[in-house]
């Protein structure tokens, strides 16, 4: 049992995100103090869980609540509250909304989108190849692919992406945008979605937004108007911000691990396992976020957590836990079982996980198949990284082939 005083809380995050390198403090904490007291830039002090087993308890055990964050000064890396809407609910409220969208994202439904995603990926590469010998992969491939797929699924015209691409940054921004810009962009995104909803009340559609409108208008109790707008806008924004970022992150890792890249080229059947390993290996989050509040006194990692205290689960640290993964800092496509928590765990497990998996598999397969000689067009040290976001990602990824 550790009895840590609030005064000893470590400042968290441990430092500015450094490309895709996980801070060494996580490994030390996993060994020596797996549940530790931290103070984030905003909000009340929190506990930080760094081991795989403890992280799964915080995310999966109903004694931890997201709904209890409402009205609290939640620990966070930005002045605003980031986990709102469905992300600030517990079952059964959460289930009511989740069930409305979960069906559209099952592995079976997502698999039907794979041919179209593959066609889009090939089309994007056709355009890149027709234009020359090099291109920015972020702009020409990683960004448009997930946007066109999520637009198709939701029923959003992808020709509007000039609008919502700008606004979507608001959902992952910490300091990249001013508080006023974040407010403005979110309002624009919600207004845009309200417009698409209004169209469907005139002309029903068989896409996901159309399905939500039908539920809302036939069964008032299942979905409020505001919930519907926020849910649809959240899916549009989250549906591409994260995958856009990960396609380029994955290609960056492969292009800077030539042995692994050669292995995938030689055996493309490894791609699904490679995607799981990259989901484990790449720390997408700039810092752990979305605190869960204990609803009763409990023990976690040898520490006594009191009812009402917030705990933050470090997914990226759990994914490097040597108790679960041999040689956790090695990129190994032959691990077999890979119980990473890259999509989270428990009731808030990423609803788009199967979509992201499919898109990442299609992206890697198509790139390696169509551009067998693909390589970085600049020195890896010169690549520009984004900052002020909840996620780590490249501003540009110049490649040649």
């Amino acid at each position, binding site marked *: 049992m550790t009895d840590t005083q609030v005064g000893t809380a470590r400042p968290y995050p441990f430092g500015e995100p450094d490309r895709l390198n996980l801070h060494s403090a996580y490994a030390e904490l996993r060994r020596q103090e797996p549940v530790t007291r931290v103070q984030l830039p905003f909000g009340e002090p929190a506990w930080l869980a760094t081991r795989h087993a403890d992280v799964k308890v915080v995310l*999966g055990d109903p004694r931890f609540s997201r709904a209890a964050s409402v009205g609290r000064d939640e620990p966070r890396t930005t002045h605003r509250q980031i986990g709102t809407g469905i992300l600030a609910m517990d079952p*059964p409220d959460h289930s009511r909304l989740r*069930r409305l969208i*979960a069906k559209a994202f099952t592995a079976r439904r997502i698999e039907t989108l794979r041919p179209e995603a593959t066609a889009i990926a090939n089309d994007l590469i056709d355009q890149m190849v027709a234009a020359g010998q090099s291109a920015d992969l972020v702009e020409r491939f990683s960004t448009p692919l997930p946007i066109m797929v999520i637009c198709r699924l939701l029923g959003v015209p992808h020709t509007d992406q000039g609008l919502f691409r700008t606004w979507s940054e608001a959902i992952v921004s910490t300091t990249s945008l001013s508080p006023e810009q974040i407010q403005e962009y979110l309002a624009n995104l919600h207004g845009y979605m309200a417009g698409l909803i209004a169209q469907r009340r005139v002309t029903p559609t068989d896409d996901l937004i159309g399905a939500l409108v039908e539920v809302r208008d036939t069964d008032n109790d299942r979905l409020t108007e505001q919930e519907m707008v926020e849910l649809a806008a959240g899916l549009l924004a989250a549906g591409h911000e994260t995958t856009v970022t990960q396609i380029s992150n994955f290609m960056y890792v492969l292009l800077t691990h030539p042995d692994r890249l050669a292995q995938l080229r030689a055996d493309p059947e490894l791609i699904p396992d490679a995607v799981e390993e990259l989901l484990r290996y790449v720390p997408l989050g700039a810092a752990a976020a979305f605190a869960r509040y204990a609803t009763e006194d409990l023990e976690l990692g040898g520490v006594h957590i009191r009812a009402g205290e917030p705990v933050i689960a470090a997914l990226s640290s759990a994914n490097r836990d040597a108790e679960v993964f041999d040689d956790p800092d090695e990129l190994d496509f032959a691990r077999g079982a890979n119980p990473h928590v890259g999509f989270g765990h428990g009731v808030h497990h990423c609803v788009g996980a199967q979509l992201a998996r499919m898109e990442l598999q299609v992206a890697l397969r198509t790139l390696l198949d169509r551009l067998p000689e693909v390589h970085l067009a600049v020195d890896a040290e010169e690549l520009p990284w984004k900052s002020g976001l909840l996620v780590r990602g490249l501003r540009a990824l110049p490649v040649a082939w």
Partner: protein
Amino acid sequence: MTAPETRWRLHVDRDLCIGSGICAGLDPDQFTLVGGVSVATPAPVPPTGAAVDAAESCPVEAITVRDAADDHLIAPEP
């Protein structure tokens, strides 16, 4: 004489399960993760909304809820 109470039989297909933990979070009385894979209570259970939520929320449709008496499918919806 009272009518026999309805009971449901829950099942998780271990080959499909990806261990997301959604069901165990929704209905911890009936679903437990064992070795990273969900296992449902083997004996028939009283009907609850949480079990239906679990079957309807599973991302790989690994969970079925059936009437223990006549085996008809209660969840998930096709």
